[in-house]
């Protein structure tokens, strides 16, 4: 369907984009990769008077290690994540997660920031980042604020981002750079499929006790937003890494999740997937930890 009329303005920097948002108020919407936004406009879900194109904002791009940690600009595309030597070295799971999103063409357009802001429960970039305690930085008229993804995600297609704010970058804290993490997705086909369930697990290993340290388990497509599973994390923390422990964590994850039945899968099927994916991501993360040791 053709889109309704709007004005297009282009922002060269994040600050310019924030200024343009302030100028046009609720009439304006941000356009980055466009893989969600333009689809919504074609389906007449929004009727913005002004579209602020940020796709040329240089300060929203780039992947780098800073004093604070691994910073990924909101405009970084899924393909750029896959090809980044920094990400490849530190977080193969992020490369894998990016690879499971859409297909080549949409990965070349779609951005990490856009994926997080659109905030669908099945987003494939969410679980890995959440399992790494990633934070997002948001710029608004009153400056910038940081928050964890837990705080950022509110519900399906809903975040704490205000009308006049812009997601600037994503930060994986310094202490977690290199933390073993694994991501798995189950979709009905390899390309162009939304996750029925996706999951990520990360932890450090106390090699003296062969025990979980700071375990994180995160699940997608099983609740209104990507969620963490504190019950399973608390259970695992400090516990010896055994098949029984991972199985129990998987059980706790199933218990904590609230999957729904829809045309893609039944809640029952999703619960089975949660158990399997949770267990496998824990096992894979452990293998990764052993390889890195």
């Amino acid at each position, binding site marked *: *369907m*053709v*889109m*309704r*009329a709007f004005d297009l303005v282009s922002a060269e920097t994040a600050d310019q984009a924030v200024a343009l948002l302030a100028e046009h108020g609720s009439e304006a919407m941000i356009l980055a990769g466009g893989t969600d936004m333009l689809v919504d406009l074609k389906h007449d879900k929004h009727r913005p008077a002004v579209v602020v194109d940020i796709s040329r904002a240089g300060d929203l791009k780039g992947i780098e290690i800073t004093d604070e940690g691994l910073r990924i600009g909101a405009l970084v595309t899924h393909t750029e994540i896959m090809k980044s030597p920094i990400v490849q070295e530190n977080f193969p799971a992020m490369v894998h997660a990016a690879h499971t999103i859409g297909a080549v063409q949409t990965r070349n357009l779609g951005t990490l920031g856009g994926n997080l802001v659109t905030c669908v429960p099945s987003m494939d970039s969410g679980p890995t980042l959440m399992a790494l305690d990633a934070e997002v930085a948001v710029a608004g008229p009153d400056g910038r604020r940081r928050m964890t993804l837990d705080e950022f995600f509110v519900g399906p297609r809903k975040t704490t981002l205000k009308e006049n704010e812009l997601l600037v970058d994503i930060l994986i804290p310094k202490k977690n750079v290199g933390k073993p993490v694994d991501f798995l997705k189950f979709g009905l086909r390899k390309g162009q499929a939304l996750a029925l369930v996706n999951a990520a697990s990360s932890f450090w290993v106390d090699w003296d006790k062969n025990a979980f340290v700071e375990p994180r388990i995160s699940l997608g497509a099983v609740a209104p937003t990507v969620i963490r599973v504190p019950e399973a994390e608390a259970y695992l923390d400090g516990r010896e890494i055994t098949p029984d422990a991972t199985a129990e964590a998987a059980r706790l994850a199933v218990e904590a999740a609230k999957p729904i039945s829809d045309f893609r899968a039944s809640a029952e099927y999703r619960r089975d997937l949660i158990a399997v994916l949770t267990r496998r991501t824990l096992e894979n993360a452990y293998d990764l930890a052993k390889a890195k040791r």
Partner: protein
Amino acid sequence: MDEKVKVADRGKTLEDLKQTDADLRLPSVVEPAHFPIETLAPEARQQTPAVGQRATRPDGRLHGLGQTKYIDDITFPNMLHAKIKRAGIAAALIKSIDTSEAEKMPGVMAVLTGNEIPVNSFGPSYQDQPVLAYERVFHAGDGVAAVAALTEQIAVEALDKIKVEYEPIEAVFDPMLAMQEDAPKVHPPHDNVYATKAIKKGDVEKGFAEADKIFEGRFSTQMIEHVPLEPHASIAEWDGNGRVTLWSSLGRITLGRADISRTLNMPINKIRIVGTVVGGNFGGKNEITTEPVLALLSKKTGRPVKMIYSREEEFIASTTRHPFIMDYKTGVMNDGRIVARKVRLVLDGGAYCSWSETTLGKACILSAGPYNIDNLHVEAFCTYTNKTMAGAMRGFGAPQVCFAYESHMDDIAHDLGIDPLEIRMLNAFEEGSLSPTGQVLQSVVVKESLQTAAERFGWKEFSK
């Protein structure tokens, strides 16, 4: 093969033909910069002698060059763009349609509603489908008004301004419920069951009585959209001599001409259809859709009018594959021999008949599978529901019943502890077997095919 062999009666060699073909195949299209002038001589299309020759598709080159012209690649001077307003409600009486606001919009050249269509009904078997719904809505994808405008965007905005007042009525969505006496009627006063068929062979009750075991199972399949990559598309041009030319993605243009002639109430010789290259059909483009609407919009405006279905319209306003509910009851001997089978098929036809009758017939004949069954009783029903209509789609009902009888077969084999291949070999058709309708079958290779397939994918090793 001897390249110099004379081609019958023409005195030309294959070489001559190749040369003629190559000469003819020099590309001649609008943008000369974008394709090769000096072609690398393609393998000529060898009309004859053809056996044993490697063939390529004659249209393959243009496809690959992006030079094939589908409907949406064709444009005419002064062409308008049409859009259709969809009902968005499954069952309702239409109280009023107010198009006045839309007509006032700058850029809107014409608006059309169902009452302006000379004969507002069509369909390949029963003419039960309105071109544009006017008094009653039968499913949510029904068109209720059409707009022709200077741009697609204006046409879309005009649809917003068309106000339709509906009085919702009770809808029925489940084919099993639709078959019940007291179900709301989709097309009153007619029954919801609009086509039935039965096949009887031998004595099925006697067969069940003789059987060692009886198996029962219910199988169902879902509605499937064809999803041709090219959506339905047409362009209509009504000329000053009272003739209409339609460029259409329609797959059956002769049938289409007859249907259009009927709806427009004009002689068929005044209607010309140019069937363009079709970007995928699969049975979904076997009947007319918007052609009469575009013809009338063109008549109203005196300008060519184009309409391309949106992907959403492709799902809600074109035909689909019938969902089936299939009940199987089969009597078998302990050795796996089938002695009796009863099949009951319920086809969910959606709001209109379309090609349901054909689908019903094929499904019935094939529902017993390629197996010798002496005592057979098949009964099948096709019923209206207030959903997107089901029509022709590759196989005409064969894939649905195949899923059912083969699943059923596996269930039986599993229960009897017989190898799934073996139970099929035991029952499969042979040369001279009788089909359920009494046809003597020839060139039957079911068993050979099964054996070869089993060997090739290593069935024995797999099933160990």
